């Protein structure tokens, strides 16, 4: 097959017509049934243009993106419609034609580049593989091109970068390397599948900027898939909003973010606007962390340096920072999982034992935790009722009807209904799983709950629901939260005080209004300016005005 002759800069590149994609699901104990993942979606993309596909998980955005390569992930089937690429229907050619298109006319950039690179092979070999496979150029030319792309994408030591193995470079660098890999065979179209979602907020902005530059300079067309409307607004010319596999709204970026027509789009645009009145600190904190220094590897790697923070009853302290800043380690120290080298923790006036094993049962009860991955924080073989009932039995000796009644009350509080008590975790959605984990923490009647990135794995609207629920529960139960997150938008919505952490130290700490008031220190400025805003041209302004380059480079 010859590459389609049209190589001019305009004209229709991709024309997806009435796409329908199905899969077979195997629910436990029921006969297999067909589910429709994408239903009657049409997409048109001109050369050199960027279309954003946006929606929550299960909206079918990745599935639509991959259909442009004729690929169905995990056994999904394209059962209807046409995918015209460079003027011909790629679904009609068979496996051989698809192989000629993949890696040559369409390339793919995955969400987790760390998993998408083969750990056993050098980056250069993988970056130029598609170009060599499709005989686009010689090995020497391909390597030269790759080095040029490494340079363009702002990778360190572009000449020798390709000689490294995936585990030797950072996540942000891998994501750029994957973009270089996609650009190396000079395709007509690149599918970006949540390329910055797994990155720290300060790294995300850099990667986003380099992707945007690369798209502009190479005049490649792109499908940009994400759940973050503010991110896609920075790169896309047009946006397609999807929900449950159906088109919700299709328009240019300006119209979608400034004048959304559909109710769902309006919800997406207004996400993270949770009203919350900041509370002033009480006289005495409920938990006080004093001069904590902690390390891993027998004192070799210091992860926390002289950290002091206070948490007040019924209030929320948000701890923010990028990965490696020590925020989760702080939680481990407070819970007693990692005894600190120096410093002390007082809880309700009494000094907590440094080791978990020496703490009383009441200490354990009053300090609960909720985790990022609700999936792995629950025993998949226990029902929701057993999971929530366990702390009731353990701390209060409840049993039988009394326990079941309390489980039902807690589920009611989670806005879930008592029928869920008989369900297994696998039958719940991501948001519901996290609600069960919250109910389990709350069952112990704690005074403080440590929330470790509890909304990071959730879709924005679902995350919003969880945050609202947490705030309501705080009002009812007067529980304090230590809220660990890298997401500043969340912090702004729910916290009363904020501690900004950077490389194991608290660089800024105080009531929310003080912390978020200029003048900022350089790191807080970087963090704040890195949060994508739903404005056209935000990215350019942010890159120009920030004072400090992000870490991870």
């Amino acid at each position, binding site marked *: 097959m010859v590459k389609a002759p049209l190589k001019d800069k305009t004209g229709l590149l991709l024309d997806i017509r009435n796409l329908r994609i199905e899969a077979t699901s195997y629910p436990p104990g029921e006969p297999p049934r067909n589910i429709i993942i994408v239903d009657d979606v049409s997409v048109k993309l001109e050369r050199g243009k960027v279309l954003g596909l946006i929606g929550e998980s299960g909206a079918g955005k990745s599935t639509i993106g*991959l259909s442009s*390569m004729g*690929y169905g*992930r995990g056994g999904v089937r394209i059962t209807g419609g046409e995918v015209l690429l460079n003027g011909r229907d790629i679904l009609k050619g068979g496996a051989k034609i*698809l*192989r*000629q*298109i*993949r*890696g*040559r006319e369409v*390339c*793919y950039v*995955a969400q*987790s580049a760390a*998993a*998408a*690179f*083969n*750990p*056993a*092979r050098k980056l250069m070999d*993988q970056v130029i*593989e*598609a170009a060599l*496979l*499709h005989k686009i150029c010689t090995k020497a030319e391909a390597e030269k091109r790759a080095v040029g792309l490494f340079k363009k994408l702002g990778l360190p030591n572009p000449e020798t970068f390709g000689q*490294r*193995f995936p*585990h*030797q470079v950072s996540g942000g660098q891998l994501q750029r390397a994957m973009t270089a890999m996609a650009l190396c065979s000079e395709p007509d179209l690149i599918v970006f599948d949540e390329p910055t979602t797994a990155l720290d907020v300060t790294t995300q902005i850099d990667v986003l900027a380099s992707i945007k530059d690369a798209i502009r300079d190479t005049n490649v067309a792109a499908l940009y898939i994400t759940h973050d409307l503010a991110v896609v607004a920075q790169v896309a010319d047009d946006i397609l909003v999807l929900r449950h596999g159906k088109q919700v709204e299709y328009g240019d970026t300006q119209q979608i973010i400034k004048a959304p027509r559909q109710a769902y789009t309006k919800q997406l645009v207004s996400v993270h606007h949770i009203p919350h009145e900041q509370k002033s600190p009480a006289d005495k904190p409920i938990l006080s962390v004093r001069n904590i220094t902690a390390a891993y590897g027998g004192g070799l790697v210091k992860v926390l340096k002289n950290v002091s923070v206070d948490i007040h009853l019924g209030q929320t302290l948000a701890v923010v920072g990028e990965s490696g800043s020590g925020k989760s380690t702080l939680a481990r120290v407070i819970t007693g999982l990692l005894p600190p080298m120096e410093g002390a923790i007082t809880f309700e006036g009494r000094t907590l034992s440094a080791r978990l094993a020496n703490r009383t049962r009441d200490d354990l009860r009053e300090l609960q935790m909720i985790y990022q991955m609700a999936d792995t924080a629950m025993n998949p073989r226990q029902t929701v009722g057993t999971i929530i009932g366990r702390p009731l039995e353990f701390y209060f000796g409840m049993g039988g009807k009394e326990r079941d009644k309390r489980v039902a009350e807690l589920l009611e509080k989670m806005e879930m209904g008592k029928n869920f008590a008989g369900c297994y975790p696998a039958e719940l959605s991501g948001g519901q799983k996290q609600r069960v984990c919250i109910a389990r923490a709350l069952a112990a009647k704690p005074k403080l709950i440590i929330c470790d990135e509890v909304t990071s794995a959730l879709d924005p609207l679902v995350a919003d629901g969880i945050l609202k629920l947490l705030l309501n529960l705080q009002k009812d139960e007067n529980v304090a939260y230590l809220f660990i997150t890298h997401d500043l938008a969340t912090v702004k919505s729910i916290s009363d005080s904020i501690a900004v952490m950077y490389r194991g130290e608290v660089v800024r700490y105080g009531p929310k209004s003080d912390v978020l008031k200029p003048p900022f220190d350089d790191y807080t400025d970087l963090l704040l300016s890195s949060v994508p805003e739903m404005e056209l041209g935000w990215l350019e302004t942010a890159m120009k005005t920030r004072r400090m380059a992000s870490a991870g480079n």
Partner: protein
Amino acid sequence: MSTPVLKLVAQRIAMGILLLLAVSVLIFAGTQILPGDVAQSILGQSATPQALENLRRDMGLNDPAYIRYLHWLGGILTGDLGTALSSGQDIASSLKGRLWNTLFLAFWAAIVSIPLAIGLGLLAVRYRNGFVDKLISGLGLASTSLPEFFTGYLLIYFVAVRLQWFPSVSTVYEGMPLGERLSAIALPVTVLTLVVLAHMMRMTRAAILNVMQSAYVETAELKGLSPLQIITRHAFPNAIAPIVNVVMLNLAFLVVGVVVVEVIFVYPGMGQYLVDHVAKRDVPVVQACGLIFAAVYVSLNIIADIVAIVSNPRLRHPK
């Protein structure tokens, strides 16, 4: 080669040496527990107590056990495996030729079976759950399920007696030309191959299928690579460690477990030698064979571990 790799490799080798020492203690202790003593066996029932006593003193049998163990171990380390009771011959010199024969047989069985097993494993992955996969798996399992004496006699009957392609008795002698030697061992090599093939093939298939779930395999697929290219370029390099492990276990079996096959084909190897001397209750020979088998087993497993360490890019190229 970087320092962490060297350190790990050195650790593995040191562990192997310790393990062998422990095995030697066990083998020595085991023979001590057996009733009767060597002097009695040599002189027979009619020996006078004085003669027994003299011989015991000459052989150092009155020394404490640990001294005798150290003597024995010292002898082994200097290449002296002792004397066979039944024949009075030096064990080391009669073992040398036989060990070489066994290694020769194992070597050719490995040359045939390992590439075949890995190749079939790759093919099974390429056509997974299809006809080819099921055929390969079915035949492999069938050949493993049949005991080697059965397949051995089956081959002797059909290939040696009816077709007369290869001899039924694998006689080899010193100075035999390579071609004749290979023809002589063709049948035992076939039997050994059939025995070890399925295990290695199934493990290759499982190890690669495990890797095929990875995101980087999808990346390769989206680059337009063909299924076979994906398996050989992207999946196989990441499945080497588990495959080498099972290959080494089977290699060890080829050396250590050939007893039955050697007896069937009357092949002058270690297995035949061992069986002969077990029948004669010749303890020093059994000790020597046991120790050699243990050494082969331990060193092949060390090699497997070292390959696994070296094939791990995270260890080979630290940050």
